Structure formats: structure tokens, C-alpha cells
């Protein structure tokens, strides 16, 4: 069978080294798709802050390793890496957010067409299937191409569909990187307008916080 199978996977998803080359306690407790040496390259900085009165959890520091990994996933279209980003926290997130709806920050539909997948959506699906895909970009732009002042105008560029699905629900908003926080703030205000019962936020990485 020519298909990557997470149950029988013996190679690290990132460096292709044997998963059992270095034995670690983490690997004994959890089934992880990456090896110990790649795991060590993540700068884990798991902490929660208050973001406009809502709990925002940040998992990693945005270091060179994370940057290149995210580039391989989003820029080189390596869908297999979707299992890597949350692997350390997966069980805990599944348990904690089992009755939440996950709202993903939108990505450009043009890029998604080329990729063949929407990156954040695929990561969200590794937690569970209750994913809300109603947020969308009104025009195609790349966040990293925008200046700081342009980023402030992001709020006019994101729209929302199927608002009713979030009414009275528990919502978790997720995004990959937080830099100027303009995207996250826009997503938050759009979701707030749908009057859900609880809102929490989860960001994979940040270079400042």
C-alpha cells in the first residue's frame, strides 16, 4: 500500500530518520509522528494570556525551525505535515475541546486551490471534525506581504458566512502565527457578533508573546 499510515509509520515525518533511533520517555507515553531530535527543535512555549478578555493559548515560539516547517507545509504544499503541528498536544486538545466548534482563520482561496488543501482547516481536523469554515477572505492577499499599517485594515478584508452555526455554541478560534494580531482580532470580532456562549483562542506560534 503506497500510503502513509500513522499507525505503522516508522520514519519521522520531518527528517525521515527512524522514529526509534533515540528512545525517549515521550515516545513511550505517546505515539508521535516525529523523532526526538526534531521534537527538540520546537521551542515549546505553552502559555495562556488574555486577549481582549478571552483566553488565548500560544504553543510554540516562532523560531527558524518552525518557520521552515510552516513554509514546507503552506508554501511547498506538503500536506503530510498537518499531523506534526499539534502532535504533542493532540490528546489533551481533543479532550478539552470535544464539544467546541473550531473556527479556522481564513486563507486565500487561490492559494488553497493550488495547494489542493486549506492548511489551517487540515490542522483543525486533527483535533476533531467540528470545524467551522465560514470565515473567508474577501480579496486575495498575503499577510506577510502587508506592511504594519496595511495589516490594521485587515478587518475589512475578512467576511463570515453561515453565522447561525455559531450561535450559543462553544467556539475555539485557531490560527498559525500571531504577529500584529490583526487577523485574530478580526476573526474574534466576527465570531463575537454571532453570539456564541464561550470563545477561546489557540495560536500555534508567536515571536513576541
Amino acid at each position, binding site marked *: 500500500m503506497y500510503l502513509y499510515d500513522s499507525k505503522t509509520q516508522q520514519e519521522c515525518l520531518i527528517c525521515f530518520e527512524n522514529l526509534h533511533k533515540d528512545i525517549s520517555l515521550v515516545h513511550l507515553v505517546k505515539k508521535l509522528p516525529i523523532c526526538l531530535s526534531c521534537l527538540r527543535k520546537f521551542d515549546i512555549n505553552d502559555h495562556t494570556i488574555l486577549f481582549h478578555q478571552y483566553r488565548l493559548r500560544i504553543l510554540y515560539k516562532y523560531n527558524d525551525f518552525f518557520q521552515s516547517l510552516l513554509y*514546507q507545509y503552506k508554501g511547498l504544499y506538503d500536506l503530510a505535515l498537518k499531523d506534526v503541528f499539534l502532535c504533542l498536544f493532540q490528546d489533551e486538545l481533543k479532550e478539552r475541546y470535544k464539544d467546541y466548534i473550531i473556527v479556522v482563520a481564513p486563507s486565500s482561496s487561490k492559494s488553497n486551490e493550488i495547494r489542493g488543501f486549506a492548511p489551517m482547516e487540515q490542522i483543525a481536523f486533527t483535533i476533531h471534525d467540528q470545524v467551522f469554515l465560514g470565515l473567508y477572505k474577501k480579496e486575495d492577499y498575503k499577510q506577510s506581504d502587508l506592511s504594519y499599517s496595511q495589516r490594521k485594515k485587515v478587518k475589512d478584508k475578512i467576511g463570515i458566512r453561515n453565522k447561525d452555526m455559531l450561535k450559543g455554541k462553544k467556539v475555539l478560534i485557531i490560527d498559525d502565527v500571531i504577529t500584529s494580531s490583526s487577523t485574530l482580532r478580526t476573526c474574534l470580532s466576527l465570531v463575537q457578533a454571532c453570539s456564541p456562549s464561550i470563545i477561546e483562542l489557540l495560536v500555534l506560534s508567536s515571536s513576541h508573546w
Partner: protein
Amino acid sequence: MECPRCHNQKATRFYKVNDRYYCRYCIQFSRQYVDEYDRFHLSKKKSAYVHYQLSFELSHIQKKISSLLKENYINQKNSLVLAVCGSGKTEIVFELIKYALNQGERVCFCTPRKELCKELYDRFLLHFNQVDLSLVYGGHIENLESQFIICTTHQLYRFEKTGFHLIILDEADAFPFYGNCVLEEIFQRCVKGQYVKMSATIEKDDIQNEELLIMNRRYHQHDLPLPYKRMMPIIFQKYYIIYFLMKMKAQQKKVLIFTPLIKDVEEMSHFLAKWFQVKGIHSKSQHNKETIELLKNGQLDGIVCTTILERGITIEDVQVIVYNCEHHVFNARTLIQIAGRVGRKPNAYDGKICFLSSSYTKEMKKCIYTIQRLNRNV
């Protein structure tokens, strides 16, 4: 299932997206679907008449190889040039490039090192007239459609679908190209006509179906300087370097001190700074270009460096000493390149190359033997 690009056959290294499998092993060079076959659009381009001008005359052997390369290309044969360091191998392909460009064909000059690409680009712009030339390396793309491209071997993947009539690969024995089967395959896929590989060190396994051309004399026709070894425990090597530097300083000669690790560069430059004007250069240090300029201008006695300076630099009348030469980074190819820094100019054709080591390694032996053989014209 096999990846058409890197020939990976390992099932776990394929992944499926929208019912199509792609190869993850060579994903760094864009996503390659397993069922995706090349569709080539290589066409000739009409351009103005291209010609070049050199500020000096080619030596007899340079002229001979230059015309042989052109002959091989016309006869659709690939060539492999073994040219010793400092023999002026870049100039010998000028005639071939001019010929191909004037036929309207697409040409690529590639090398594994970015710095070298930049230098080559300046050189070609200086010597060639009316040429449609572009430079491509990581983070820098001019025009991918140009008739003549200078790029790093890592950027060749951008041309897999168009290819070139002629590709010249310089420093074929250098990291990261040498021994990397994915880069080798990408190179082969870009060759839609003939190629010329140039290298200072060639082993039997490197020769495939090419015609081997050897240029074992430097431009100035003198022998290559032969390295000598000084055997001593590592703790004494530092003091020998002081002695070496003192001797060279008295003769107003510049010195390159090669060390195996970045950490060694830091330690050694700090240690030597008590007595001499020295600075360190490694891949993570800044202002490397300026430091080299300082040495060239005589404001420094020496530079402590890693193998980063093994290729592509010419410093007049420089002497070389290698610290901890038994370290595995100093393989025969690297040592030959290091020795190649010495005696490159006609007015300073000789110089000292000293290997400091506590044991006489196979690699050192091979390096010295190869240089001896090249000097004997074998």
C-alpha cells in the same frame, strides 16, 4: 511507485492529496506528483549577435580545451573537465557559450555556491556584450525566461520543465551538489542537450559517458605547490602556528589558517590576536567580504577560517596552514582545494601549505599524491 524526480521508491515517503500521490523526499524542490511527467517547452531564441572580450590572451592549453569543448558540443558529446585550482577554467567555456547563444540556444552556468554565482554574473556581464543574462539564487530571481541563466544547483528545479540546450556545471565536486542524488537528478532533467562538468578533483566513479579533458597546468605554467606535513600532538599545533605566522610576517606574507570547526575559529583567532592582526571567518560570522579585503590590502596578518574559504577566492601570495588536519571535514577534495589557494598569481606562483596533524591520514596522503600526479602530467 517511483518518484520521477528523485527515484524514491519507499512507500512511506509518498503522500496523497486529492487522489494524487506526491513524493515527500524531494519536497524541498517543489511538489512532484508521481503521475506527473515532464512536458518540455524548450525552444530556440533569436537574439542579437553575442560576443565577448578578454583582457588577456588564453594560454595554449586553455585554447586547446576551449576548442575541444566546442567540438564536443557540436558532436553532441558531454565533457568533463579536470582543471586544477587556478588554471582559469571559467574562461575556457566562453567560446562554447558564445557559440551556443549565437545558435539561439538556451544556456545555463550553474555552481553549488551562491557567492560564486554572484561573482560569475559580474564577470560575464563585464566580458560579454549584448547578452540576455539573468542571475538566480535562493532569495534572488531576475528573469527565469532569459536565454542565459547563472544559478545555484539548488535553483535548477525551476527549469525542470523548460531545460537547457547547454549546461555548464562548475565546482561539480563541491558541497552540497556532490553526492546529493536529488540535485544530480534535477541537473540531469534540465539537460536537454549537452553538459560540461568542471571540477578540480575527479575520481573514477565520477566519469560516466563524458569525454575527459585535463588541464593540469595553471595559467602561469608552474607546478602546483606541494603541501608538507608537520606531525605533532594537537596541544603543540597552536604554538607551531605562532612560529609559522611570525616567519611569514617577517617576509610580509599573508596567511590563511584553516580549522575544522566554527568553535576552533573563535578560539584560535582569540588566541592569536594577542600577537598578530588576525580575524576569523565562518558561515555565521559577519562582514566576511570586508575581512577578506582587509587581508588583501595587507591590514591583517592572517585569517582564521573554516572550510568556507576553501574555494573561489584568490589572495595574492597567500600561505596556508591547516590546524587539526586529521579531522574528518578535511577530506582529500577539501585539502586539494585548500592547497589550491596558494601560488595562483604569476608573480607569486609558489608558497607554503602546511598540514598540522597528530597522524598521517589517508585523506592527506591522497591529497599529496594527487597533486604530485598532476604535476607529473599523468
